[in-house]
């Protein structure tokens, strides 16, 4: 199956943006990833099993593109992460603190944390998206949680 790209954009552009921003830490680069990801979807001839399959595919493409941008010397020079965070409107101070602490995590922990807590993917699904092992995902998830617990104290629940 295929979903028209315009419809897909409305459904998932914020998800793609959030995932890309999580890696790039840059609003401008994340917007580029959004554009490029949907452009790639538009141009591919691939058929998908269902909507879940499409979502999985575009997230994986977006994460790869974000990583490519991050390691490229063509990154754009624009506002710092701190300045960008100032432009965001959080519901509570605790939300802002959680956001900032997540963005301080090493990228390999951040990505796993984001896919687990924001995109609701399982360890197995995250391993497929990131093309790594389930044990690696579990370790990164565990370490990411430990760092968040250390930084946020009671604001972050203990989890197994």
């Amino acid at each position, binding site marked *: 199956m295929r979903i028209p*790209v*315009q419809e897909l*954009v409305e459904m998932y*552009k*914020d998800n*793609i*943006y*959030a995932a890309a*921003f999580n890696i790039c830490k840059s609003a401008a680069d*994340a*917007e*580029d990833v*959004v*554009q*490029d990801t*949907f*452009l*790639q979807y*538009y*141009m*591919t001839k691939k058929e998908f099993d269902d909507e879940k399959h499409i979502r999985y595919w575009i997230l*994986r*493409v977006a994460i*790869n*593109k974000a990583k*490519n941008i991050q*390691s*490229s*010397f*063509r*990154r*754009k020079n624009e506002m710092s992460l701190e300045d960008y965070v100032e432009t*965001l*409107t*959080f*519901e*509570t101070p*605790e*939300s*802002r603190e*959680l*956001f900032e602490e*997540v963005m*301080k*995590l*090493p*990228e390999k922990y951040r990505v796993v*944390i*984001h896919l687990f*807590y*924001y995109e*609701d993917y399982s360890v197995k699904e995250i391993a497929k998206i990131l*093309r*790594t092992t389930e044990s*690696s995902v579990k370790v990164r998830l565990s370490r990411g949680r430990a760092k968040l617990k250390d930084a946020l104290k009671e*604001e*972050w*629940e203990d*989890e197994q």
Partner: protein
Amino acid sequence: MSNKENYKKAFSVLKSSCDFTLEEKRMNRIKRENTHRNLLVAAAVMLVVLAGSGTAYAADLGGIRETVQMWIHGEQTDVTINDESIEYVDEDGNVQVETGFEVGPEIGERPLTGEEIAEEKVNEVYVDKTDDGKVIMYFHDKQFDVTDNIANKEYTFHVVTDGSEVYVKLDFDENGDFSITTSPKPDWFTDYIELK
């Protein structure tokens, strides 16, 4: 609230401002052009190997489409050069489409041509942190294990391959993430590790 609910609440502030209405028109144009190019590419393909660069070019009939071979992330890769983008399949099998912009006070924002993007890509330094803890630097057709250098806090390198050289500086933050800065010329006050 659970961790998941708190996380979603915090990250729901991230909203893309991307407007795809105009982009779809552009995408339609790109799709039509690529279809047209595919029809025109026939058996008449000319292969030219540029001396000294190790890069192979294939020019199709009328020069409408260019396919080159470039070293990307340590692998010889077929790259298609379009008007304002380049396209290739990465090591994970994903099709990558790269665009770029030049920004300046006089020109505003100008999209880079495919040739300009390819030229930048050819000279790109790529650094990969593998799952087993190694740090590998790629430049053109060469790869260098700089794991020990990083461990010794040696972050500046002079990388030399056949006919090309670049000066590389890695900047690490407190989380272990790094950025790459390259320059064709050395900083006279910096010592560089030679990688050949």
